[in-house]
């Protein structure tokens, strides 16, 4: 199973902002982390990630700087800004609404999805 393109695109911003809210990071590490957390189900391309990072920077949600951490190559690190945190909070609120709604639909009485899943199990 792979997650559809639309869903990936919609969820990319809060995921990147969320990861950067934990700690500053760089492109490759962000991609690895997404891959790990989703157990390989979310397979982002570079063509998705880097333009997204640059867009978030243009909007003022993240800042970037080239840094050399001891023992590593010089890298472009991204960090989240205050407006980025505000945006993240807003996105979380919206996602919570979506997820809650879906949960109620899918676990309601006579739920078709559950019946199918049960049948398969």
């Amino acid at each position, binding site marked *: 199973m792979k997650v559809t393109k639309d869903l990936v695109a919609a969820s990319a911003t809060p995921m990147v902002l969320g990861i950067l809210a934990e700690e500053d990071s*760089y*492109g*490759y*590490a962000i*991609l*690895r982390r997404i891959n790990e957390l989703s157990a390989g189900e979310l397979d982002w*391309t*570079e*063509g*998705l990630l*880097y*333009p*997204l990072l*640059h*867009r978030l*920077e*243009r*909007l*003022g949600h993240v800042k970037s700087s*080239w840094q050399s951490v001891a023992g590593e*190559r*010089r*890298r*472009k690190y991204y960090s989240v800004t205050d*407006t980025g945190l505000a945006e993240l909070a807003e996105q979380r609120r919206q996602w919570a609404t979506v997820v809650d709604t879906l949960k109620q639909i899918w676990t309601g009485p006579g739920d078709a999805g559950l019946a199918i899943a049960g049948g398969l199990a």
Partner: protein
Amino acid sequence: MSTPDELESQFAQWRQYLQKRPELRKADADELEDHLRGSVDELVGAGLRADEAFLVAVKRMGSLDDLSREFAREHSERLWKQLVLTGEPDGAVASRSRRDLIAMIVCAAGAALSIKVPALFGMDLEHDMSFYGPNLGLFVLPWLAGFLAWRRGAPKPLIGALAGLFVLGAVAANVFPLGDQSQTLVLTTIHLPIALWFAVGLSYVSDEPRSPRRRMDFIRFTGEWFVYCVLIGLGGIVLIAFTFGTFKAIGIVPETFVGQWLVPCGASAAVVVAGWLVEAKQSVVENIAPVLTRLFTPLFALGLLAFLVAVGVNGAGIDIERDALILFDLLLVVVLALLLYSISARDPLGPPTLFDTLQLALVVSALAIDVLVLLEIVGRISDFGTSANKAAALGENVILLANLAWAAWLTLGLVRRRKPFAAVESWQTTYLPVFAAWAWLVVLVFPPLFSFQ
């Protein structure tokens, strides 16, 4: 077995491919190279040989075409003219440009012929200005909009909307009984082409009408189009001079040919040709409009400030004739154009510079002048009552005032590093429909409102 040196030379080679792409800047290439190295390191750690790891890592990164297309979407200011948004492979480019050329020739010929159609009914440019004036945009701009819509493969509903707008414009210009000497005739003559230009804009952004980046591209398009028109016009003057001179030398005066055919047909065709040139980026002038704004922003800022100082020293408001009032309106429009083009040319990620401060000075002084002009107009309306002209001027100044005031506020935020440049940019792209709506309002509502006077 590959050595570290071989691996490095592979990286260098890959890097060269990357740098051939105008979508990617050096910093992007650095960032992507770091990504590739991270990927290679991990694969080597998992037991692959270095050269295998390199191949797998490059493969994983996906095709450079896809990658650069995504970069182009985000950074459209870097190469807005070459945007490969149609997503065609390289091989199709040549045949594409040939088809573009043919479509352009058809549309330009259509525009040139359209302007001569009324001549079949015995009208001519010299004696029927009250017909030609308001209709001028209608002869030419549908062809330009058609060319752009064709090039974008515009969806059917959009083509319907475009057709509707042009028909609406034709109704406003010809069904209303505008008096030959009336103010509303002049207002329609000025505002209809502007209103129709926004219809051209709609066909320009047809793939993504709501995208601020595409709207910004249309602002760039307008600037470059204007520059190309001026250049073609200059060439036209040279052509006319030679036509006149050489034919006169053999005893023929080509006045009718030049006045009735060469000038009107040439000018109409030029509108389409200029649009095609911008699209096809046959760039004699690579992004000249932004360069011109860089030159003229400081000069205009100085001029406006000097004027304001003079007003302050004189101690009187601007008390002037109607013609001069129009001059001030035009001045404000020029300032707005300067503002828009410098915004469209600016690197969105760059930190605030001295130029942004200059721009702030320009906007604030324009704002002050706008207030002076508004006071004058309101004064005239309360003294002499309202008229179509005064109402139009009042509305335009209020619209400009709102735009400039908020632009000044946002630019101040930018200069003080409180707001990102994107805020300034998106304010202007969001505001574009307001201008369009106003132009259409003047064309459609003003004539009946002022009983066609």
